[in-house]
């Protein structure tokens, strides 16, 4: 007892009271010690005094002393040994609460020396007559396994747990299942694991029967544990799958939402094995109402429910087809709930309810919250693209919104209009003047780039297109890169459509872009255009004015293979993040702690990624141009790799080749690079190798079964897709060196090219 409190002060007074001859005084002192401990005062010096009060008839006092012990066991393990005798004695106490308390505390102390004394009492308590003691002991085994697995195996505790699955008390069954599952998880996370390791907890047919019986009897938390175990069971045949589904369905009627969600998960998994169509229909029908009911809960619960509903809808769009009104937003809903509701509303949109949807979206667009307003306007665009018959009504609503002249509303509406122009070319040319009238109000890059794209696309229909584009050419150097790229492309389009009147402007922009611009992407694109125009305007036309593939709204925001996996994880973090578990929890199947990414974290590092991606796209576009131009013959390159020549190097690395294959079907598609820009920011592939892996342009093969976001991602990025997942480690990313050609290399060819023009 080297540490003694000084002979004055609070701790000294406590120490005196702890040794008082009156029990009430002692008990009160213990409470004060606990309170001091809670507010962060150091009361470790009182250890011996507190310990003296451990042997007592007063259960509450005992609990408090135990609490103190648990708190200081880490820092003063040698003192805890003094308590061992009392623990062992208590585990034999006539009062079951005391027995359970002793076992529980010993399991929690995590002190090596205590563990050695734990096994005998644990052995007894596992067979205790009182279910409370038995279930406490069952959980204690899992804790012991965590510390010293060999003790659990040597003492035969595992066999005992397996026997306890057949316990008469459902609470004991549920806790035993939880303990066995914990041990199973701990064992599987170890690297060297033989398939017949005793710690594994495979669910056999006989265990299944016992679990199904206990399911209806035990507490809500026990049900969740049992349902999670049922989700792991592999059914023998369709009869068994049906049986499980039928037995689990009544859990939908439980008050506790987590039981409902765990039941949904089991059904989603075992429904795969069900062959009877009528049963599948019935199951799907029963699944919807409890999920909708969760929407009357507090916002946090609503959010989890909405995320899961969103996932289920991607697999079974029919389950809530008549229920869009349930998802209407209220103005005082938290933003995260509104955003999720919006997404689901668009998912549920059809010709029969589109009018109701549009009037809602218009309402939301007049709200105060800027983020939400923007998302609502985006949703209008998505609706237009999703439902052909409603496109005109959507455009109408957008025009009304532009009329409000609220800056961010106008800007977002312009961005959305671009998507609509893309989907329905040459249908709404009449509104171009209205859009152009708002040119001065635009100050966000995405909005500017979108309007410039529209002007370039319809240059021949806009009388003063050269004037309008001239404004952007004048300020070219100050603009952001996406705007620069768009201006460049739009001016070239203008030139190709009206060669006579726009020779000057095209020369000006190519000059500025190649000389004064510090972005290699912009420069390289300018070079490509310049060369195209100078060698073969016909080819330039074929490339720049090529027919663009139509866009569509994705039915799913996650790839089908991933969707299937996530549906198996309904009611888990994975289903909330819409990403496979291993990308966000370090522990688990792959154990890749390093791969830690999340949608909100993506803002920072993603910039590099996107510029890398853009560069790759530009390069890919260049490769396409190469075929058209037989580039090698031109003297300009003379062994100095410019942006174009670099592609040859690129195509030797397999990953890069994939990237090229992924993008080249879409030659010089400037849209891809606009879309790929900030709008796609939520995309978060986990990239252990640094910033080089493309998120948008998407390497199909590299993502393996989980991938498949592929090409579409680039153009759909702005349509609010959530993100492309990546399998850590499996991703052999293209090395950063291939992406950006060093700038000085451009000096020499530049002169040659200028001469050519």
């Amino acid at each position: 007892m080297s540490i003694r409190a000084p002979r004055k002060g609070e701790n000294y007074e406590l120490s005196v009271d702890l040794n008082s001859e009156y029990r009430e005084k002692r008990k009160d002192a213990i409470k004060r010690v606990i309170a001091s401990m809670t507010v962060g005062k150091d009361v470790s010096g009182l250890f011996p005094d507190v310990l003296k009060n451990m042997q007592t008839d007063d259960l509450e006092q005992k609990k408090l002393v135990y609490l103190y012990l648990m708190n200081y066991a880490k820092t003063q393990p040698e003192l805890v040994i003094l308590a061992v005798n009392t623990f062992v004695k208590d585990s034999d106490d006539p009062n079951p609460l005391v027995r359970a308390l002793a076992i529980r505390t010993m399991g929690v102390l995590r002190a090596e020396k205590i563990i050695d004394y734990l096994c005998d009492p644990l052995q007894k308590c596992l067979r205790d007559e009182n279910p409370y003691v038995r279930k406490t002991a069952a959980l204690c085994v899992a804790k012991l396994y965590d510390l010293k697995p060999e003790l659990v195996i040597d003492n035969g505790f595992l066999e005992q747990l397996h026997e306890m699955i057949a316990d008469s008390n459902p609470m004991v069954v549920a806790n035993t299942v939880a303990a066995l599952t914990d041990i199973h998880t701990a064992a599987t996370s170890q690297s060297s694991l033989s398939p017949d390791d005793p710690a594994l907890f495979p669910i056999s047919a006989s265990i299944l029967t016992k679990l199904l019986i206990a399911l209806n009897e035990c507490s809500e938390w026990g049900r969740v544990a049992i349902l999670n175990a049922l989700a792991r069971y592999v059914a023998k045949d369709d009869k068994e799958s049906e049986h499980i589904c039928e037995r689990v369905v009544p859990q939908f009627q439980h008050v506790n939402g987590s039981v409902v969600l765990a039941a949904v998960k089991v059904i989603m998994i075992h429904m795969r094995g069900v062959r009877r169509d009528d049963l599948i229909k019935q199951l799907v029908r029963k699944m919807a109402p409890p999920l909708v009911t969760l929407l009357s809960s507090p916002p946090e619960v609503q959010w989890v429910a909405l995320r899961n509903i969103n996932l289920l809808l991607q697999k079974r769009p029919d389950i809530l087809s008549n229920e869009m009104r349930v998802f209407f937003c209220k103005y005082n809903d938290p933003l995260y709930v509104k955003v999720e509701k919006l997404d689901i509303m668009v998912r549920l949109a059809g010709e029969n309810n589109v009018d109701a949807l549009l009037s809602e979206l218009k309402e939301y667009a007049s709200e105060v919250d800027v983020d939400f307003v923007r998302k609502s306007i985006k949703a209008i665009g998505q609706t237009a693209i999703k439902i052909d018959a409603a496109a005109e009504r959507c455009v109408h609503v957008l025009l009304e919104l532009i009329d409000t002249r609220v800056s961010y509303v106008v800007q977002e509406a312009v961005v959305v209009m671009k998507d609509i122009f893309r989907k329905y070319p040459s249908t709404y040319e009449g509104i171009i003047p209205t859009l152009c009238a708002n040119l001065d109000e635009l100050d966000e890059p995405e909005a500017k780039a979108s309007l410039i794209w529209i002007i370039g696309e319809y240059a021949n229909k806009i009388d003063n297109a050269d004037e309008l584009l001239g404004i952007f050419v004048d300020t070219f150097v100050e603009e952001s890169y996406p705007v620069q790229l768009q201006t460049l492309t739009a001016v070239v389009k203008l030139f190709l459509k009206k060669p006579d009147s726009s020779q000057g402007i095209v020369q000006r922009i190519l000059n500025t872009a190649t000389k004064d611009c510090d972005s290699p992407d912009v420069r390289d694109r300018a070079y490509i255009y310049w060369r195209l125009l100078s060698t073969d305007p016909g080819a330039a036309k074929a490339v720049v004015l090529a027919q663009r593939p139509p866009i569509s709204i994705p039915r799913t925001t996650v790839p089908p293979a991933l969707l299937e996996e996530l549906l198996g994880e309904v009611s888990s973090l994975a289903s909330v993040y819409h990403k496979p578990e291993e990308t966000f929890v370090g522990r688990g199947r792959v154990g890749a702690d390093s791969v830690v990414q999340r949608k909100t974290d993506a803002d920072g590092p993603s910039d590099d990624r996107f510029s890398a991606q853009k560069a790759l796209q530009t390069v890919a576009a260049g490769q396409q141009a190469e075929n058209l131009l037989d580039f090698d013959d031109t003297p300009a390159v003379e062994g100095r790799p410019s942006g174009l020549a670099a592609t040859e190097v690129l195509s030797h690395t397999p990953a890069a080749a994939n990237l090229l294959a992924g993008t080249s079907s879409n030659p010089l598609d400037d849209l891809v690079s606009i879309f790929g820009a900030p709008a796609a920011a939520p995309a978060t592939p986990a990239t252990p190798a640094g910033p080089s892996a493309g998120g948008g342009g998407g390497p199909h093969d590299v993502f393996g079964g989980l991938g498949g976001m592929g090409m579409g991602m680039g153009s759909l990025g702005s349509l609010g897709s959530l993100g492309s997942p990546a399998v850590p480690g499996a991703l052999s990313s293209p090395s950063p060196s291939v992406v950006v050609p060093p700038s000085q290399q451009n000096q020499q060819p530049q002169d040659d090219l200028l001469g050519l023009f």
Partner: protein
Amino acid sequence: MGLDGIIILDNNGRPIIQSGFRSSTTVYPLLHIDAVNNALEKAERPADVDPVLYIPNTTDVSSACCHVQAGDLRFLCPVSGDVDPLLAFAFLQTFIDILREYLGTVSAATLRDNFDIVYQLFEETLDVGGHPLTTYPNALRDIVIPPSLMNKLLSVTGTNFNSTINSGFGAGAAAGPFSSPIPWRKTGVRYNNNEIYFDIVEHLKAIVNKNGVTLSSNVHGKIEANAKLSGTPDCSLSFTNPQVLYDCALHPCIRLLRWNRDKVLSFVPPDGRFTLMDYTYSSQSPNSPLPTSPNVALPFVIKPNIELEDSGGSFDVTLTSRYSTHALENVVAELHLGQGAGGIRCSVSRGSGGGGFINAAESRNSGSSGGSNRASWSFDAQRMILRWEIQIVPPSSSWSLHGSFVTANRAPRPSHAIRVCFDISSHTYSALKVGQLKVTNAKENYKPYKGVRGRSSGEVEWRW
């Protein structure tokens, strides 16, 4: 793996008390506290912070933090591994309910006064391995004594207290805790007056568009029970119109088979208060797959007349009760006026219709609130919300709020919706009627007093 613990923060984001976190490092809870506080700081409105925060951790396992606000406090539940966040939220809610039952009000002060109780509850409700344990109030009361009961015991039995404890608490624990064959009910309960009460509580949520058309409305209800019955009573409750009940979620005590077959609630109740069932009101036949929202007639009409000018606006809002028999109580209408609003001038008045006397209109030129004793208005300058409160709106009566506001150096941007909350006593939207309640008891023969009441509330968003 699982729910790693509970942390309770005060309204400044400082931890008041937290569970042991014995299987994790000491920094683990701190990381979560910091993450939540950072997120709250960054958010414009605290309510907009994502309820599940991802906590990256470079040295240890990454985890997520589920958090909810309850009164002045914020409850955090760190989770690791692939856990259902709903499990965390459900558990937090359960825990908050338990605290409320033990401490009366849950606040920083009551927590600080009862550290010992809260710690005991942590230990009993959540396993160190992350599994929720005992949360049935009946069972919990056997192992953690509520402070009030303890005080009572202290005053009555004095020093004999300890022997009482050792033999278990209350009448029920005589045979030892958890010996009851029914997990939600303790054995040996005894009352002199046997009573059982049911409250049918329904809540309406609706959105009305600017033309006064109801866009969506739904009614969720629950049956709250308070059972004070001796022995092991077996109740069976039937309704005359069970078809209005849709998507029912039942307390585990209810025999599911019987309900699904006969629509009769047959159960052995827990002792004390509990929620017997939750349901959605549907006017459709039970065979149709999904309920379309039943057309619940809203209890009132609002005529909002709000004019916006360059730097302010005026409003003239009339609320008229549509009910001819029931009065609306505690009516609160809120209008968010947008950033920079101020200079509110208001008057509230009672229009024609309905019985009772008419309050004189009252207006104030200065100050931020005013009104008569039955209707009043106030302005929350922090949240920019104009509140209009009417204690009682008698049947068919009509009330109005008239006034103006100005905005400092910008165009007014009020929210285009008025949110109205209200209560109605002795009324249910679904008109759910209890047909019969039978209480049978094998051992003892008593005739309990039985009572059923209805109560409703609502929240309507009325757009303009």
